[in-house]
């Protein structure tokens, strides 16, 4: 029989969920409502007047080829950031898990990059790859490769991906490492006795057992790539060259706070809200089905 605890009356349950509801209302529903409302207007920057334009802001945005391109850029960017931050993290975690000596030191060192703020990480990478004074670009020059992310969109994308993913590897490593510790030794030993080699054991036993953590990290990293990589992009490329690193969130900032075009910026926020909502539904509906808890 299913066991259920029920409350008598309404007061206590309402009281218990009140903090959560209040926080959601103040920090989510109110600003989201404001964004939806503002997206119907073209206001002047100082808030002195507003022109009602209906869906004009959306029409303007969707007819802009650069805005449509920004969806592709965002998709490429977040896929790459997610992959680059998760695959090496898993690899490092598996390696760390096998260590007998010095695991603590190794672990601590791997966690350090997570403590660095995205904007600072951006500056670090920008200096290393600076086209004139960067250490790495200098070595690349020695090898005969002329690195110039200021003009080359592909290189710019590569650089912001690496700079964004770098700090996240630590975060992902922590989760993978903890999950690996929870994989029962007996199962692995049984497989080993049956003659399964390391990589075979990894793909048929360990990886499926890691799927809940992998799924969690997938969701978290996609959200990170969408919203929190702003500082890195701002410091390294400012969305250039030729908007090749302008992801949707960066464009919201650039139009709203550089261009003072709050109507367009609000409309973009609404579109972003819908995109991320849809993405979350997809993740939970389709990918989660393949997760074994």
């Amino acid at each position: 029989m299913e066991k259920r605890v029920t409350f008598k009356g309404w007061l206590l349950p309402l009281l218990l969920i009140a903090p959560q509801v209040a926080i959601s209302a103040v920090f989510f529903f109110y600003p989201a409502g404001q964004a939806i409302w503002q997206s119907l207007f073209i206001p002047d920057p100082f808030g002195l007047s507003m022109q009602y334009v209906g869906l004009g802001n959306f029409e303007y945005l969707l007819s802009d080829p650069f805005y449509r391109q920004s969806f592709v850029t965002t998709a490429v960017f977040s896929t790459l950031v997610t992959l680059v931050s998760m695959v090496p993290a898993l690899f490092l975690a598996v390696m760390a898990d096998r260590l007998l000596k010095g695991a603590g030191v190794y672990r601590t060192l791997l966690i350090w990059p997570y403590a660095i703020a995205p904007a600072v990480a951006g500056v670090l990478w920008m200096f290393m790859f600076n086209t004139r004074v960067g250490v790495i670009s200098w070595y690349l020059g020695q090898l005969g490769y002329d690195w110039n992310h200021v003009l080359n969109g592909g290189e710019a994308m590569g650089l912001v991906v690496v700079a964004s993913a770098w700090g996240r590897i630590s975060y992902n490593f922590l989760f993978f490492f903890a999950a690996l510790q929870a994989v029962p030794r007996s199962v692995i030993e049984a497989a080993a006795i049956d003659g399964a080699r390391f990589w075979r054991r990894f793909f048929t036993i360990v990886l499926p057992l890691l799927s809940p953590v992998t799924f969690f990290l997938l969701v978290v990293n996609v959200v990170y790539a969408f919203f929190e990589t702003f500082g890195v992009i701002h410091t390294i490329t400012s969305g250039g060259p030729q908007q090749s690193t302008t992801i949707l969130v960066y464009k919201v900032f650039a139009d709203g706070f550089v261009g003072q075009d709050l109507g367009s910026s609000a409309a973009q926020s609404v579109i972003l809200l819908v995109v991320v909502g849809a993405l979350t539904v997809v993740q939970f509906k389709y990918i989660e089905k393949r997760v074994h808890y």
Partner: protein
Amino acid sequence: MKLSAIGALLAGSAIAAPFAAMAQTEIQFWHAFTGRLGELVAEQVETFNASQSDYTVVASHKGNYSETLNAGIAAFRAGEQPHILMVFEVGTATMMAAEGAVKPVYEVMAENDAPFDPDAYIGAVKGYYTTEDGQMLSLPFNSSTPVLWVNRDALAAAGIDPDTDLSTWEQVGTVLDTLKEAGSTCPLTTAWQSWIHLENLSAYHDVPFATLDNGFGGLGTELAFNGPVQVAHVGAMGQWAQDGKFIYAGRRNEGGANFRAGECALFTESSAGYAGIKAEAQFDFDVRPLPYWSGVEGAPQNTIIGGASLWVMEGKDTADYQGVAEFLSFLSSTPIQAKWHQDTGYLPITTEAGEATREAGFYDENPGTDVAVIQMTTNEPTGNSKGLRLGSFDQIRGIIDEELEAVWAGDKDAQTALDSAVQRGDQLLRRFEQANR
């Protein structure tokens, strides 16, 4: 009243400003200067505060130009605006359109009987901030204009006479050829490409950057920098970029590091680059006027300014504006202006401050520091060279940067890139017109 969350956050920092003695009226002044410039501003403010006892000016740094403007706008929306806000030249149209948010400087001066003679200011400087009927809306603060910086040692190393004439782009082209042949890795670089190679290029050759006198004539202005002069110039620069004669370093003044390190022979940059170059350059350098194309009739006209001006915000007590007027008069006074000009390389805003500097022998001791002044003041500005007044200009510059980068990378030819920049920029102008109808 609408109050965005970000606005409230930004405005919150205004409340945290230090309190002065209660008897004095406090004047809030938000600016965008750090480092040496920040110190010089602080010095000006201290001198003013010490010179009288009725007012205390409190200067606060609010980030770079864009951030300062944003802080001012957000603060206004929250009702916490400063008395005086520094706004870069690019934000001029935004501020002008904000009737009800700003109080024109000529009005502040007249209402408070402050000594104020618009004719004392250098025409090309004040023109940028003056209405069509000659009323000064904001007080020019720091203004500079682009010049050509020359690494004399680099020219000599390539077997070129360091005193060679570099007045025209044709002559520069020949020198670039020689430099390249002699193995220079960076014959020419630039800072602020849109400002120097399109905005100033247009003014200097007396061709329009935008219609309706570059936007001075109204919000209906349309971009026009895809004309033959601009296309020819950007085309030539693009070719130089392909040949490795023009090295593009970035949208802002990244190229300055390369020049100061001695890598680059020629460098187009603001006259205000003086302090940095003088401090760091380990080579013999000099300043030349910005080159022009000799084939273009009317060139050289005059260059236009970049920099910032001080806007007075609405909504403060009437009595406060007396203090604002006194502070602005103080800033325009000859000794303060002459010192500012000499310390920073920025232009003096009054004719008198320029003359005082000359009389003090400063130009003789620091050759080339008057090039910018001469370049700006030789000719009376025309409709094409008075300045630019375009809405969403910060974003339009971003678009121009993108399209120029496409030319430097060899992805687009000059005509295609400039046509595209004009078309994209015009969309923003129409939106700005709609927002400020």
